[in-house]
């Protein structure tokens, strides 16, 4: 096939098509609208289902219905729209039907703005909706990675009967990069064994998220937890750069991780032994690997496009073995490599001024005007 110049949103949409998705339901919201627009043409061309819903609330419930009926189905949105989907996501998690959500994050809270941000980490990675559930969250940093993860997402969703989220941001959705698209997968010939298809020559099936007896609900929750642990065991993904001899580790996901990699290269050129750990799976979080890195690292710098959300998970993984600093830009501002570099140097200076660095002494650093 070869590489083509592809726009992030359209590349993700085409990757989902090639992964065999047969039904898309969505609602326009910047900066993901090209996904919806692309699919409005592409899905009917292939005799697949495209429907523009009246709201994100309706869109996620259409996906819920299509998933119950055994379709390979997905939706896409951006932060405020994803907030509206939280009810549906909780019900879907509680019904154990597979689906994929593409979240192209933007600035918040509230209406915020349409610029790239990473403020959905908490609502996506920690659950967001009510009840104890986890989503399998994959965060790409390049258009190629977004294609590759979207292509795998549907089969992962079906394997675990879970929701898989591609957590991108506005810059990834809007940028154009050379990337290669995978081949078209054949469509599923049969609905899964649990799907609602009409009780023809078999007992009827019911898909619901209600368990009225507390003991039943608890037993169901135990079953969910076993599944999430299994995901945690087998689905950890991360990317690393120059960590082997690194004294300092920068941690960032998605676009922030990509910017941080440039800063790491510059710091290396200036003689600083620094490496990058970029989590790709945010749930499951690569906590074991970070704990391992914490054995020999002098300190960590977490870089995010939010006020420090993944920071909490890095601190839990490092568990006091090394100081964990933070540099963040908020409100839709993408950090510059120079800013990350400055934060890195500032952190290394702390090592000199604080002979016994304590993680609680590490105050967050925010870029921009105070």
């Amino acid at each position, binding site marked *: 096939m070869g590489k083509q110049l592809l726009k992030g949103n359209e590349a993700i949409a085409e990757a989902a098509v090639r992964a065999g998705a047969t039904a898309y339901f969505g609602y326009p919201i910047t900066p993901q609208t090209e996904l919806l627009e692309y699919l409005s043409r592409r899905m009917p061309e292939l005799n697949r289902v495209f429907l523009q*819903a009246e709201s994100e609330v309706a869109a996620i419930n259409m996906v*819920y219905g299509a998933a119950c009926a055994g*379709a390979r189905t997905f939706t896409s949105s951006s932060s405020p729209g994803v907030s509206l989907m939280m009810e*549906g996501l909780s*019900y879907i998690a509680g019904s154990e039907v597979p689906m994929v959500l593409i979240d192209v994050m933007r600035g918040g809270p509230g209406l915020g703005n349409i610029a790239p941000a990473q403020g959905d980490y908490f609502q996506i990675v920690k659950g967001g909706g009510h009840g104890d559930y986890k989503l399998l969250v994959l965060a790409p940093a390049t258009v190629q990675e977004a294609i590759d993860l979207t292509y795998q997402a549907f089969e992962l969703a079906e394997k675990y009967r879970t929701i898989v989220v591609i957590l991108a941001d506005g810059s990834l959705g809007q940028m154009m990069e050379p990337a290669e698209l995978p081949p078209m997968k054949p469509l599923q010939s049969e609905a899964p064994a649990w799907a609602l*298809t*009409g009780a023809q020559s078999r007992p009827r*099936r*019911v*898909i619901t998220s209600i368990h009225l007896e507390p003991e039943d609900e608890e037993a169901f929750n135990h079953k969910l937890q076993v599944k999430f642990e299994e995901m945690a065991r087998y689905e950890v993904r991360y990317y690393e750069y120059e960590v082997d001899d690194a004294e300092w580790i920068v941690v960032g996901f998605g676009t922030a991780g990509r910017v941080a990699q440039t800063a790491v290269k510059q710091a290396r050129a200036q003689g600083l032994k620094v490496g990058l750990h970029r989590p790709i799976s945010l749930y499951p979080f690569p906590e074991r690997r970070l704990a391992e890195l914490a054995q020999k690292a002098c300190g960590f710098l977490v870089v995010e496009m939010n006020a420090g959300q993944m920071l909490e998970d890095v601190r839990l993984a490092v568990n006091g073995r090394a100081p964990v600093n933070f540099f963040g830009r908020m409100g839709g501002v993408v950090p510059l490599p120079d800013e990350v570099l400055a934060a890195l140097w500032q952190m290394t200076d702390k090592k000199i001024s604080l002979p016994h660095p304590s993680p609680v002494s590490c105050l967050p650093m925010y870029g921009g005007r105070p």
Partner: protein
Amino acid sequence: MMTAKLNLTESLVYERPHALAETFTHYCPGCTHGVAHRLVAEVIDELNLAERTIGVAPVGCAVFAYNYFNVDFTEAAHGRAPAMATGIKRVRPENVVFTYQGDGDLAAIGLAEIMHVAARGENLTTIFVNNAIYGMTGGQMAPTTLPGQKTTSSPCGRNVARMGMPLKMAEIIASLPGTAYAVRRSLHNAKEIIKAKKAVRRAFEAQLADEGFAFVELLSSCPTNWGLSPAASLQWIEAQMLPYYPIGDYKVKPGQ
């Protein structure tokens, strides 16, 4: 010794519809949800749809509707059954898909979803049970609660100056372009129940003929939350609900 010869022949006068599951009911004594369920089950039997039908239950008293039908079923979030049914029908147009919803579910929290399935003309059937109250949560004011009607959240009676007038859903749905069939029937006596059955049947036939959205509003009783006996509740439907919610055909697409 003489043996008495008895010639016994049985004639079946009553049978549980096959589409109605044999189980205990959670509905209160005198509630007409059971009648509405039976009408839907009879129609599924008569049209031989049990193997093709997928039902979507609401949140409210009918949340357990999936327990009572021998067909595939799912259970939606509050008000979202029409959106869920849309997703099912769009990916499996060969199936017959229906929602069964109460007035809080359909006319309050799920108003956007029901209006848009009607606007799009989704090939779905909706059975809408209007009992002028929130049943499951214990009798609060619904969008269908009558002016002056006392509920646990309108203890002095619905004040229309502050709370507005109740919604006439059959008329509203009839006004939308994608609606093929929108009628109101009542379950307060045998004659009206027979008429309601015909409407339910036509609402499923409309879906089979790909005509668009089909909607049957059924005026229903709630003795527990109205604080009336089952018999008095049926009289209350006739005396109080019928004047505001007239039985009628609000849209019947030509050709049906």
